Each structure stands twice: as structure tokens, then as C-alpha cells.
């Protein structure tokens, strides 16, 4: 009997490899690098690992272009892959592209950072690629289990990266804190997935959607509990208040380039998962989850902007500001399907702004990655005018200054809130934006208006050095931020085309 069962061929799904190219390139690229490097005794020469990571990420980025055309082509359109475990749609490709860009920029910044801090080995780049591949799996998941696996690949690599700077106690602390709380959040998420499976009989998002559209649950307590638990899990990952406590500590402790990655890529992937689950799959339950998202958004906006004002550490300031940005994106999530493209555009603009900002923070942190107090920014406008100008542009963009990507990002989510007649959220969002403007101005004040007193900041320690790769990354970030504000039309159209679409096996 048993023998006969084994004899029967295991049904394997058909795999369209070409459609999985971004995931595969990133994952294989990461594993290959790890393998090759461990075969040799000597470390690869300077810059090679970073260049390799950039090339792999760029290849993955390019591989999304034909897929994008394929999805937009009305004859083909979005499809489900690997028996609908993975979905190929504009939404996943948009975030995939964003993740690849994040990897490229972070790798450029990390290169000089590792040299400066004397951290040997290409592990950081391996982890970057693996983490991004997890993110891609997560955003293209059409099944809750696959999404969870993607999230775990993404997060576990990020935990290790946070603790990468082993000689700094704060980095280790950040790693542990991130790990413990992140694991906690994963548990919540998994528990929620289990409950939703119990309520709907499937973990496939498309099937869940079909099930909910065809059946009316008389007792939906289980489903709503599952949704609540998943919201907690996602809330942790995106750093929304009241699940934000880890954010300032981890952002402060983690190596600055890694913080850039966490604030951009990890957040983008988590938001993408959240939008796919809440706005798309459980769109019919919008009345149930919307009040909770409203509360998360309001609290994040208020706490993020108000608490940021009292900080004196720039990394912590940016951490709180990232909480308030999460609140803004949640305003887009709150508008459900009407806010998806606004949230995507926000994520795109935010990716550039935040990586650029943390890149500057990396430079100013100097050897030891410890100079992050406001005082360390004194006189930067004089000693490093270009760096200060770039930082000022990025900060003003985060404040939502006109003709920067930050403005249209905020404008988009406000418009999304307005289109669903949600005035209170729009008003809260704009008022808190004005409060957080104070925070960005404070950094600018220190850079430009405060005199150092002594001739240069270099007297008391190592001077600010800007490696060429990092300045290139900052340049890209600044140019992209301005481009998103001056010619936003193509990017807004891109975000509008990136429609999330679930595929279901049951018709």
C-alpha cells in the first residue's frame, strides 16, 4: 500500500521560470556569492563585492522591464505562477523594482562604510541580496504562506545585518531587539494566517477573495480576529504606532547603511504585503479593518511628528520621521483601492529620500558610526557644502517641499483621502506634516546657521570623508527626488498602472 503511494508521481506545478526572474536573480546571485567567497581563503579585493551586488540588483531590475510590458499587455495581463502561489502583476513588479533600486543604492553606500569601519567580508552584500529576494517573494506572493516565507527571508537577513557591526555594542543590541520583536511580530502574523485559514479554508489570497465574494460569513469572529492579528504583525514591520517602540532604538543602533535598507526596502515590502492582504484580498471587509488602520495612521502621524521634535540624535529623529511617513502611507492604505497608487508613489519617493538621508548620516557618522548628535552637524554647510545641500534637499523633500518627490507623495495620499471623503485624516496628516517640518528645519539650522566655534569639525575627530560610490548614491537619490517633483507624470502613471491583481484557482 505504502509503496504504491510513493510510486505515484508527486504532482509538481508548472513553473514559468522567466516570470520568476527577479526573485531568482537576486537569490541565486546572493547564494553564488556566498559560495564563491567561501571557497577562497582571501577576501575579495576592495569594491568587488559591492560592484557585484550592484550588478546583480541591476540585472534583477532590468528583468522586471519585459515582465512589466507583459503584464500591461492586455492580451497577457497579470497571471498566477507556480499554481497560483506567486502572482505576477504590476504591483509586485513596481515594488520589486523599488527593492532593487534600494539594494543598488545601499550597496553603493555600504561599500565605503565597510572599508571605513574595517568590517571585512562580503556577508553584508550577500545578506542584502537575500533580503531583497525575500522581499520580492513577499510582494509577489499570492498565498499567505508564501508571503510569510518571503517576510522571514527578508527579516532574518535584516536582523543579521542590524548586528553586523559586531564591535559596536549598540549594533548588537539593535540586532537582538530587532530579532526578538520581529520574531514576535512574525508570530502574530502567522497566528493571524492560521485563523484566516480557519475562517476561509484557504491560504491562497485569490481563493480567499473568491470565497468571500461568494459566501457571506454569518460568524466572522474568527476572520476578524485573524485580520486583527495580521494587522499587528504588519504594524510591527512598518513601524506604525503603537507597534513602533523598536524603531528608534534599532534605527539608531544598526549600521547606518543597514538602517537605510530597513527604512526603505523592508518597509516597502511590508507595506506591499499589507496592501495586498487588506486593500485587495479583504477589500470586502474594508469596514472592519478601516477603523483600525485609521487609528494606526492617526497615532503614527501624531507620535512620529511630536516625538521627533524632542530628539537630539539625528538617527533617532529620522527614525521618528519614518514613523510619521508610515502614518502618511497608512493614509493611502486607509483609502483602500483608491489609495494604492498614492501609497506606491509615496513608497517610491520615500525610498530615495530616506536612503539618501541615511547615506548622508553614514558619512557624517564618521569612523565608528557614532557621531549622530545634532552637534555633529554643526557647520556642515561650510565644511561640506555639497553634502549639506544634498541633505537639505532630502530633508526638505521629506517635509513635503514643493518641486520635490515628497510633495507629490503627500499630495497623492491627501488626494486619496479626499476622494474617499475622509477629511479628518487629511487634516491630521497635513497638520502633523507642519509639525515635522520643524524637525527637518532643526537639522538644517544646525548644518547652516550654527557656527562650529572652532575652525572645523575635524579638530575633535576624524573629518567627514565621502567615498565616490556613496556620493554617487546620494547624487542619484537627490536627482530622483527632484525629478519626482518636477516631472512626476511618468512616475505617477507608473504607480497607477501598478494595479494589484490576485489570481485564483477557483473560478
Amino acid at each position: 500500500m505504502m509503496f504504491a503511494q510513493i510510486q505515484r508521481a508527486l504532482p509538481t506545478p508548472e513553473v514559468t521560470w522567466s516570470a520568476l526572474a527577479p526573485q531568482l536573480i537576486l537569490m541565486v546571485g546572493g547564494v553564488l556569492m556566498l559560495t564563491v567567497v567561501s571557497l577562497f581563503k582571501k577576501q575579495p579585493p576592495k569594491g568587488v563585492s559591492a560592484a557585484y551586488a550592484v550588478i546583480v540588483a541591476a540585472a534583477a531590475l532590468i528583468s522586471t522591464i519585459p515582465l512589466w510590458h507583459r503584464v500591461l499587455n492586455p492580451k497577457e495581463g497579470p497571471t498566477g505562477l507556480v499554481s497560483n502561489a506567486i502572482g505576477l502583476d504590476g504591483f509586485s513588479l513596481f515594488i520589486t523594482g523599488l527593492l532593487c533600486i534600494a539594494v543598488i543604492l545601499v550597496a553603493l553606500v555600504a561599500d565605503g562604510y565597510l572599508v571605513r569601519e574595517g568590517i571585512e567580508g562580503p556577508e553584508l552584500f550577500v545578506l542584502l541580496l537575500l533580503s531583497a529576494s525575500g522581499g520580492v517573494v513577499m510582494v509577489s506572493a499570492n498565498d499567505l504562506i508564501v508571503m510569510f516565507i518571503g517576510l522571514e527571508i527578508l527579516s532574518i537577513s535584516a536582523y543579521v545585518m542590524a548586528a553586523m557591526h559586531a564591535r559596536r555594542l549598540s549594533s548588537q543590541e539593535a540586532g537582538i531587539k530587532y530579532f526578538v520583536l520581529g520574531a514576535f511580530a512574525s508570530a502574530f502574523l502567522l497566528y493571524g494566517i492560521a485563523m484566516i485559514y480557519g475562517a476561509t479554508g484557504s491560504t491562497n489570497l485569490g481563493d480567499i477573495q473568491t470565497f468571500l465574494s461568494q459566501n457571506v460569513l454569518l460568524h466572522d469572529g474568527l476572520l476578524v480576529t485573524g485580520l486583527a492579528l495580521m494587522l499587528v504583525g504588519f504594524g510591527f514591520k512598518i513601524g506604525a504606532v503603537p507597534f513602533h517602540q523598536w524603531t528608534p532604538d534599532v534605527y539608531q543602533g544598526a549600521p547606518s547603511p543597514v538602517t537605510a535598507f530597513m527604512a526603505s526596502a523592508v518597509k516597502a515590502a511590508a507595506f506591499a504585503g499589507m496592501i495586498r492582504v487588506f486593500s485587495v484580498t479583504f477589500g470586502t471587509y474594508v469596514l472592519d479593518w478601516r477603523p483600525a488602520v485609521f487609528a494606526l495612521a492617526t497615532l503614527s502621524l501624531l507620535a512620529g511628528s511630536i516625538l521627533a521634535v524632542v530628539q537630539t540624535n539625528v538617527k533617532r529623529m529620522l527614525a521618528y520621521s519614518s514613523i510619521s511617513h508610515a502614518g502618511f502611507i497608512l493614509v493611502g492604505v486607509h483609502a483602500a483601492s483608491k489609495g494604492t497608487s498614492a501609497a506606491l508613489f509615496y513608497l517610491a519617493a520615500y525610498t530615495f529620500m530616506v536612503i539618501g538621508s541615511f547615506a548622508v548620516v553614514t558619512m557624517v557618522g564618521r569612523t565608528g558610526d557614532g557621531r549622530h548628535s545634532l552637534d555633529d552637524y554643526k557647520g556642515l554647510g561650510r565644511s561640506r557644502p555639497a553634502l549639506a545641500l544634498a541633505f537639505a534637499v532630502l530633508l526638505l523633500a521629506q517635509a513635503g517641499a514643493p518641486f520635490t518627490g515628497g510633495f507629490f507623495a503627500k499630495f497623492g495620499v491627501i488626494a486619496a483621502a479626499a476622494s474617499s471623503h475622509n477629511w479628518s485624516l487629511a487634516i491630521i496628516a497635513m497638520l502633523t506634516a507642519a509639525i515635522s517640518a520643524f524637525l527637518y528645519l532643526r537639522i538644517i539650522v544646525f548644518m547652516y546657521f550654527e557656527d562650529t566655534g572652532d575652525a572645523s569639525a575635524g579638530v575633535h575627530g576624524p573629518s567627514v570623508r565621502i567615498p565616490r560610490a556613496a556620493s554617487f548614491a546620494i547624487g542619484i537619490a537627490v536627482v530622483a527626488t527632484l525629478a519626482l517633483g518636477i516631472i512626476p507624470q511618468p512616475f505617477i502613471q507608473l504607480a497607477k498602472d501598478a494595479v494589484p491583481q490576485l489570481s485564483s484557482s477557483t473560478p
Partner: protein
Amino acid sequence: MLTWMILVPAIGAVVIALLPRHRPDLHKLAAVLFSSVGGAIALYMLSQFHTRTPGFQFVQNSSWIPSLGIGWHLGVDGLSLFLLALSGLLFPLAIIGVTPHEDTKPYYSWMLLLMAGSMGVFVALDLVVFFLFFEIVLIPMYFLIGLWGHGNRIYAATKFFIYTMFGSALMLVGIVATAYLHQSASGGRLTFDLVRIATDQSIGTAAARWIFLSFALAFSVKVPLFPLHTWLPDAHTEAPTAGSVILAGVMLKLGTYGFLRFGLYLFPEASKTFAPVLLTLGTIGIVYGAVCATMQRDLKRLVAYSSVAHLGFIVIGTFSLTVQGIEGGVLQMVNHGISTPALFLLVGMIYERRHTRRIDELSGLQKVAPVMAGVFTLVMLASIGLPGLNGFPGEFLALIGTFRSARWWGVVAASGVILAALYLLWAYQRVFHGEPTEANRSFRDITFAEGLVMAPLLVLIVFCGLYPKPMLDRIEPSAKALVVHVAKYANDVDARDVELPPVAAAESGK
């Protein structure tokens, strides 16, 4: 052409940023060049403007962000024409007249960026484009005050920025609400086009009133209206001379111009409803500003408070909702933009020489600097509103307009004219009359170069005072059209309410 008027200074700012750092002469040359070209375009437009046509001219309407309904829609009418010309004149003058002591490169870059932004505000006919320019001017001004200002500059700059930012935060919500309510009320695509929305007037009365308030808050901060004016004395006092010139001459007008274009034109009914409130605040501003100015010990602060009073006249003129009142308001905007910058330039010259602006430390300057005293007298009399000089026609028309529609406000406001005479003459007496103290003995009279900068302003003061007709001819058609527009929509509001209940109109899109 309007696009170029914005682009030329913006390009100039970038060019200067790329010049080598140690060539201050080159920076100034480039700044003068680019600002003059921008100004020349504005003056050329002034000459090509068709008199006696109320509509927008030099219109440019191309798409910018079609997926959000935002268009690059620019145009000029009689209300904005002279404000543009004024900006085109003041920026080159301020750049020529005042040379910063250090960091010339970023200074001129910010000045040109400020010019581009100001020009943009006055020509924007799309709500979002307007908002973008309205906000962008904050940044250069913030840096100008913060980097080249005096004493308490960081406090002043930050206060200025945060005040204005809070004011305009709600305006953005108002703009978005306007567009979406317009779309759901009149159908069609989402659009932020001012002219479309204003001529359709399809937004429900209740919603329009709320949105008007969000706009009014932003403009009131910018004007500034009592009690939102507290940033102004600080900003003016700490700003460098050129900053004060531009702040008083151009930036305060963004608020009063906003009231005309985005208050009255966009929300006629709400403007009429809230007119008593704004008239009251304007009147309080006139009296309060004058009283405060009387008590100032700092000459620059005195001029700053006098601005609060003068802008009160513009506001009451505007919200008298009469042709004379609006004409007077526009005229007063331009004239205040000539005489107050002139005063700031003079105060700046005094400060350059004596390094103090305290009135009690200055005395007897007339003896050592007779020419400057003469110039100061002329400018001061213009600012007081002496008939025959430029301050008079605007103030007078604004008051007539107010008398016609809101008599008692007019009566109180007219007292402001007397108070203006009081504080300015008294200040003049303390600064210029009497015996010069030891420190003031070596006070140098106005130089030729300084005189050259002042000359165009002085000519305009006399010309606009004696012969304001060319200006009025161009302003009047637009002012009339605006008053008709307001009357049309504000009066038959009762009839409209019956057809379309405001709440239903606001929520029909749900």
C-alpha cells in the same frame, strides 16, 4: 512667455550655484543679469497688456500632470499685472542695491529662486501650481533670514517658516477638497484649474465656506492679519535689508493677492459671508499696527508694524467687495510695495553706517545727511498717504469702497491714516531733527550708487501719486469683473440653495 519669466531666474539660481565660490563679482553680475532679464520680461508684458480687457492675457495652458488633473496654466490680468511688474522691478533693485558681506554665491541663488517663486504665484491659474509656488518661496526666504540676518535670526526664520507652513497645511487639504467636490458636483475629469472651478461654481455652499476658511487661514498668516501677524516683526527685524525689501514688497502681497484670486474669485459666496470677519480683522490690524508702530524703539520694527497697518487697508478694500475697494486694494498693494521697500532700504543704509537701528541712538541726521533726509521725507510722506504721492490713491479708494459697503469699519479704519502720520512723523523727528550726537557726526550722506537704486522708486512714488490713471485703467476692468462675479454668485445663493442642498452637493460623490 510667462513660463520664461519664472524659468529665467530659476536658471540663474542654478547657474550661480555652479560658478566658482571665490568670485563674488561674478556672482553679482550673474544675479543682476538674470533678475533684470526676468524683470524686463515683466515690464515688456506691462507694455503689451491690453487695457480695458478684464480676462486673462498671455495665457499658457499646457498639461503637466494629466493623471492628477494638474495643468501648467498661467495667465495675467489687471489684478496681477502690476504685482508682477513690481516684483520685476524690486528684485533687480534689491540685488543691485544690497551686497551681502559674505557667502555671495548662495545668497544670490536664493534671491533668484525667491524671484522665480514670487513670479510663479502671481501668474498661476492652477490651484496646485499656485500652492507649489506659494510654498516654495518659504525656503529661500528662510535661508535668507537665517543665514544673512541679524541677531535673533534663527528664531525669526524658524518662526516665519512654521507659521506659514501651518497656515498653508490646511490650504492643501482645501485645494484637494475643492477639486474633488468640483468633480463630483459637475462631473467630468478631476481638475485643479482655477478658471474652470471658479466659473462652474458647483461646490455646495456649506462645503465652500469651510474650504474658504482653509484658504483664508493661509492667506491671513501671509498678509499677515491680526492676530496671526506676530511672525512679521521678528522676520522683518532680523532679515537682511534685501530680505526685508522683498518680504514687504512682494511676499506680503502673496496673501492679499491670494484673497482676491482664490478667495473672492473662487468662493464668492463664502467671501461675502465672511467679509465682516475679515473687515474687522483688517480694521483691527490698521489700528493695532499703527499703535504698535508708535511704540517701537527699533526703526526697522516700526516700519514692520506700519506694514501690518497698511496691509489692513488692502484687506478691507478687498472685502468691501466694491469696485473702488478692490481697485484701491490692488493699487495699495503696488504702492506699499514701492514705498515700504524704499523705507527698508533707507533703514538698511542707516544701519550700514551706524550699526544700530535704535531710534534713541540716532538723532540730528538731517544736519549731516541732508539728501538722505530729503529722500526719507518723500518716502515717509508717501507711506503716510499724502495726496499727490503714491500712498494716497490706493488708501483713499480702499476707504471709499469700505465706506460704501461697510460704513463703520471705514470710519475706524480712516483713523489709521492719522495714526500713520503720527508714528512716522514722530520717528522722523527723533531720527533726523535735533543736534547730531558725537557718534552721528561722521554719518555719511547717501552715495551716488545708493541714490541710483532709490531713484526709480522715488520716480514711481511721485508718478503713481500724481497720475495713477494708467494703472487704474488696467486694474479696473478686472476689478469690475470680479465684483460682478461675486455679486452674481453671492446674491442668488438663496435660489441655489433650493435647487441643490449644500450637504447633498458635498456628498453626492460618495
